[in-house]
């Protein structure tokens, strides 16, 4: 079992396990701020194909034209002039764990990644700051024709055309300011291709670690699950705590072909100085399914709304998410779905917990287009407020453009019931434990969807958060 799981290290889960820093000695670092020169420099260093160089410069243009959104939590603390767009660790990519430099290796070992790979994963990718440092996939999985590699290799190798055909087609740089930024400076990330009919029985996992102070991480994940294939992909994120802002503006593009199924699980535990402005999107063809499982615990500020475009008849999406905002955190999360074909369905279940001045916002948009008859959508979101310093907002929107739709939405907000606390206490359970038990129970329907080691970690995080006395005043 990995370190993360060990009970006696609970206290480390939040405070120290992720919160250690390596001495920075990158081989190359751009100047803070963003200019065409910096973008050119990145492109040159990475040895981009010409089209990518142009793509980056165009994206930078778009970035400069777009403004930050007028909604959502403030991002004033983020000064782009201070973001070192690109930090490249002092190493090449490795296929063998033993070749990864010791300090980086130690980081991932402390996070339990290689351990987990041996135990329960079909393949692992690890990104350190801007570059993938390790990528490996099990032989038997590779033999089925499954490709799992870093984006840079994919851009130049055998799959170059496939990458070019799909790269930022789902999330164009024009989508919003941070998508444009991503287009200009993206670096690292994973490329996965699962051939038709292949079912990858054990999950693939990418782990992202941002170590450098005041840096940005802009990894790009591109996954294509071909007809009738199945994949479970797990993404984990962490960073140590610095007192300057870090930025994560990754991009995830998922292509789910006819009859295919993709499960995409994320546990995000960035440190609390992180601005997490991430864009995730899936395009689902006829009879395909995308399942999102999302746990958001870290970051100072998050904007995260995985979007599913149900493009083929009978396509389905499920979204299961939990957000826990503690002191100083403003986590604006949710989901978007566009029903673009008949008989598509969406099912969204979210929970949020606000504590110690933390602010959770659930935000969603369900759109049913004119041509999409016979669609079903259900949304259920529940929020728990643990004190009155905190805040919890629910901002869903539904846009229905034909009459043959069945759309349901329900939301609830409340507190831990005094009666339930009394009931548990009447069985000898201490008040703090009773409250923690009720909160874990509240989160349970979501945590049971998470990979088991993450579910354990999540319960530890909740327990840890609950052990800290919360103040009742406004």
């Amino acid at each position: 079992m990995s370190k993360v799981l060990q009970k006696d290290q609970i206290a480390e889960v939040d405070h120290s396990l992720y919160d250690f820093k390596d001495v920075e000695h990158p081989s190359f670092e751009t100047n803070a701020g963003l200019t065409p020169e910096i973008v050119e420099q990145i492109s040159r260093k990475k040895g981009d194909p010409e089209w990518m160089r142009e793509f980056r410069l165009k994206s930078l243009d778009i970035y400069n034209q777009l403004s930050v959104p007028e909604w959502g939590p403030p991002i004033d603390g983020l000064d782009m002039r201070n973001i070192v767009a690109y930090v490249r660790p002092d190493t090449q990519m490795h296929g063998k764990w033993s070749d990864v430099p010791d300090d980086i290796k130690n980081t991932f070992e402390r996070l339990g990644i290689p351990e987990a790979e041996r135990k329960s994963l079909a393949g692992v990718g690890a990104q350190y700051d801007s570059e993938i440092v390790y990528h490996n996939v099990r032989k038997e999985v590779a033999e089925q024709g499954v490709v799992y590699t870093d984006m840079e290799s994919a851009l130049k190798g055998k799959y170059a055309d496939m990458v070019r055909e799909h790269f930022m087609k789902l999330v164009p740089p024009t989508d919003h300011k941070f998508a444009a930024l991503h287009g200009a400076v993206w670096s690292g990330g994973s490329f996965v291709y699962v051939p038709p009919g292949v079912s990858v029985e054990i999950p693939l996992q990418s782990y992202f670690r941002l170590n450098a102070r005041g840096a940005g991480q802009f990894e790009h994940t591109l996954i294509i699950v071909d007809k009738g294939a199945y994949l479970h992909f797990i993404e984990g994120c962490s960073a140590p705590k610095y007192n300057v802002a870090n930025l994560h503006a990754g991009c995830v593009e998922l292509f789910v072909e006819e009859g295919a199924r993709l499960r995409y699980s994320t546990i995000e535990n960035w440190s609390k100085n992180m601005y997490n402005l991430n864009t995730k999107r899936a395009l689902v063809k006829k009879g395909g399914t995308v399942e999102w499982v999302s746990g958001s615990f870290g970051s100072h500020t998050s904007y995260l709304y995985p979007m599913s475009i149900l493009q083929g008849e009978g396509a389905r999406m499920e979204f299961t998410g939990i957000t826990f905002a503690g002191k100083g955190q403003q986590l604006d999360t949710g989901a978007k779905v566009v029903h673009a074909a008949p008989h598509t369905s969406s099912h969204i279940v979210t929970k949020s917990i606000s504590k110690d001045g933390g602010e959770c916002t659930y935000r969603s948009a369900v759109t049913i287009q004119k041509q999409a008859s016979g669609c079903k959508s259900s949304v259920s979101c529940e929020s728990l407020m643990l004190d009155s310093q905190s805040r919890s907002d629910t901002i869903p929107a539904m846009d229905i453009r034909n009459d043959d739709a069945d759309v349901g939405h329900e939301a609830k907000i409340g507190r831990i019931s005094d009666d339930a606390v009394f009931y548990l206490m009447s069985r000898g359970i201490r008040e703090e434990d009773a409250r923690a038990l009720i909160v874990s129970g509240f989160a349970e329907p979501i945590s049971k969807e998470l990979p088991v080691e993450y579910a354990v970690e999540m319960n530890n995080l909740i327990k840890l958060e609950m052990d800290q006395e919360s103040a009742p005043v406004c």
Partner: protein
Amino acid sequence: MADKLLEVSGLHASVDGKEILNGLNLTVSPGETHVLMGPNGAGKSTLGNVILGNPEYKVNAGKILFEGEDITKEKTDARARRGIFMSFQSPEEVPGVTLEDFLRVSKRAVTGKPLKVFAFQKQLKKTMESLSMDESYARRYLNVGFSGGEKKKAEILQMLILQPKLAILDETDSGLDVDAVRIVSEGIRQYKNESNALLIITHNAKILENLKVDAVHVLADGKIIRTGGPELIDEISRTGFRPLEEGAAQ
């Protein structure tokens, strides 16, 4: 060991500023079974809640001693760890926490010892069987979607697992069909021994059939107006509470 298990004296208690109990006295010794009867609104459930220290109820005067120690100001969980248990009339639903996990946590809490996992599981299985509860209930969320009868059985299950010194059964028989009443009363019989005690709040004589009742109390207007032996139950079945209340008023 004190010879008295529970001693309630001069108890005045209110909820939302309204006085429900006014000057109640009650003593229960180890090994005894007491029955508390009375018309609706007399304060029967209030007494159970106050003995367990429900913060919604305010004690204005009087004392509650348990095994000779004053617990009037103690928190609910501490009282439970002393060995006081109440079977709730309508127990709370707690989503996300399975019945089994809950029992495990509370068993650990009341015994203050680490749990012997296999012994616990065996005991749980056996006890559920004796209550005709399907095994799958152990994995279901606590009381969520349980029928009225299943909720009551789950309460009795908790009592049997936690083995309290004093069990207060608040209308445990209400809303049960004949078979369920029989099962529940069998469970109660199974629990009872010479060192523990029962305080049964009920409307119904049925649940008491197999039990040796030591004392019957009639509660009206927040006070015990009459105490007697099991024969009082028959009297009440025949004539109702009205004559007793009128007698008390004179």
